[in-house]
């Protein structure tokens, strides 16, 4: 991975000039690598975002641990999607800090740089490349040198083909590999997008309503897949489907009006009076 400068700014600015770099850190700082030494993969602190006076996020603070599967719930307009927009660089926060690992300041990076650093995102509405085949969708998403010069001459190596084939198997699209993605069913599109995330080899996956429009059986399998991914990956799942959340959730965060109002195991959160009030018995 190419070291990109903004990642280092935080270290360069802080210490005095007389110290040797090695003396300042108990562990080496590798540019472009996510530093997970403190056990957290994502820190959001006091993030505020306003759109034309509407406060989408109101001093939101959130921490995701390495290997965690976190579910985020909340009524419409609670700021769930905006939170993902901030993490992926689509929206810049008005104030607050947003770090990936210990060292990567996400508010300074572009969407592409954030993707390279290891954050993958699935949108609420499945966004795949409709005119490309399922195979090509995965080919484009797959982790690789994504600069123009390399892409012009890129050819798929044998192991890359294997990796795509494996992923197609996993998302049950092996038979539809050469089918134009626009012709897939809604559930299959959702799976294809999840597959695109997986071949990108992200460390953190943000999944916005991943089971919307899926059949019960597909939802079931998606849950299994997420549980299998947790541990080796960190996942943040935003969902409205409470049955799905109950099945996979370990720790749940409830957002309301742009801030966290409750956090903890599902059973505890469900009985929280503030949460009950927000959902009004829903």
């Amino acid at each position: 991975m190419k070291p990109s400068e903004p990642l280092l700014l935080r270290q360069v600015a802080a210490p005095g000039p007389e110290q040797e770099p090695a003396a300042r850190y108990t562990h080496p700082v590798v540019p472009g690598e996510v530093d997970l030494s403190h056990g957290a993969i994502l820190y959001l602190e006091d993030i505020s975002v306003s759109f034309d006076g509407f406060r989408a996020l109101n001093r939101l603070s959130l921490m995701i641990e390495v290997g965690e599967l976190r579910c985020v719930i909340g009524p419409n307009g609670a700021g769930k999607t905006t939170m993902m927009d901030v993490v992926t660089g689509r929206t810049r926060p008005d104030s607050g800090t947003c770090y990936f690992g210990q060292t990567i300041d996400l508010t300074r990076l572009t969407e592409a740089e954030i993707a390279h650093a290891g954050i993958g995102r699935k949108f609420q509405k499945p966004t795949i490349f409709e005119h490309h085949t399922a195979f090509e969708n995965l080919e484009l998403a797959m982790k690789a040198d994504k600069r123009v010069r390399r892409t012009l001459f890129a050819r798929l190596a044998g192991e890359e083909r294997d990796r795509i084939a494996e992923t197609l198997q996993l998302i049950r699209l092996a038979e539809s590999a050469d089918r134009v993605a626009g012709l897939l069913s809604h559930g299959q599109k959702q799976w294809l997008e999840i597959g695109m995330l997986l071949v990108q080899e992200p460390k953190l996956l943000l999944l916005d309503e991943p089971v919307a429009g899926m059949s019960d059986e597909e939802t079931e399998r998606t849950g299994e897949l997420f549980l299998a991914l947790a541990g080796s990956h960190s996942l943040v799942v935003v969902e409205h489907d409470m049955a799905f959340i109950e099945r996979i959730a370990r720790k749940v965060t409830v957002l309301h009006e742009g801030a966290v109002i409750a956090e903890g195991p599902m059973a505890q959160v469900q009985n929280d009076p503030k949460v009950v009030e927000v959902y009004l018995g829903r």
Partner: protein
Amino acid sequence: MGPIATALSRLYGTRGWIVLGAFAVALFVVLPLLSLAVPAGHPLHLSQYWVTLAGKIMCYAIVALAMDLVWGYAGILSLGHGLFFALGGYAMGMYLMRQIGREGQYQADLPDFMVFLDWKAYPWQWWNTDQFWWAALLVVLVPGLLAFVFGYFAFRSRVKGVYFSIITQALTFAAMLLFFRNATGFGGNNGFTDFKRILGFAITTPETRMALFAATGAALIGTLLVGRWLVTSKFGRVMMAIRDAEQRVAFCGYNTVHYKLFIWTLSAVLCGIAGALYVPQVGIINPSEMSPANSIEIAIWVAVGGRGTLTGAIVGAGLVNGAKSFFTQAFPEYWLYVLGLLFILVTLFMPQGVVGVVRRWRTRT
């Protein structure tokens, strides 16, 4: 299969290569023979008029290919591609003006329009333009640099869709006004004309004309193959993905600005080359080439032929310009109506253009 055979089969299948080969034989063997070896007056003789017309249309076809790469494949509609074409033409025109030497009306060292304006020396823009290699460099560099700088700011600021199209339209209009001024140093509204020689050869002889024609044919085939290579590469797939879902491409880790900038600049350079081949064949370049209507016409060629297919771009340029040269002679006052009607009909009934219709017709039978 060797690596070369693999690379060739990626571009076209056997049938495609045979068609392309036949096209090349026609361009480089049959037409030159008909024009040069068959005596004038013989029914098979190919007159200067047809050679020039075909050469001109091939220049337009290169422009259409360049347009299709940015519009049909990357989703960037430019309504200012005539500007890049004209800039390439002007760069070549400067060299051709210097080649006139003392054979102009005033028999002076300077081109006629400078004598007329009472200028005593070449302005700075004309530096070294008596050298062919320098003019050739300008043909590539001027449109390329302008497109790069303009594209950098536009794409970085995420100017998209119709806003981008309008700005390109304004750009070519502004350039036209600039080139209309005598003080700009390119002959004002008369532009450059009355060329005598190119590379020392008299420009109007049938042999020179045929050589220019063949060079244009080679450039067209080269552009087609480069374009085909691009759109069948991973780069091409990324480009089409940007057209369909740019945000998703960015979230996959691609810097879409770099991709758009690359194809945009390449497209402008191709237009510049086409313009440089066009000017010695038609014998004139003036600011009207930069008029907004010209650039819109380029988009119509591509729409008629079929966006997103390279063959379509060539077919569209051929059909529309063929029709244009017929109508402007037979019913000159109706051409613009025909063009407008054509555009409306194609948009309504043939969204994939002529190539799309042929394809649908083929799959049905």
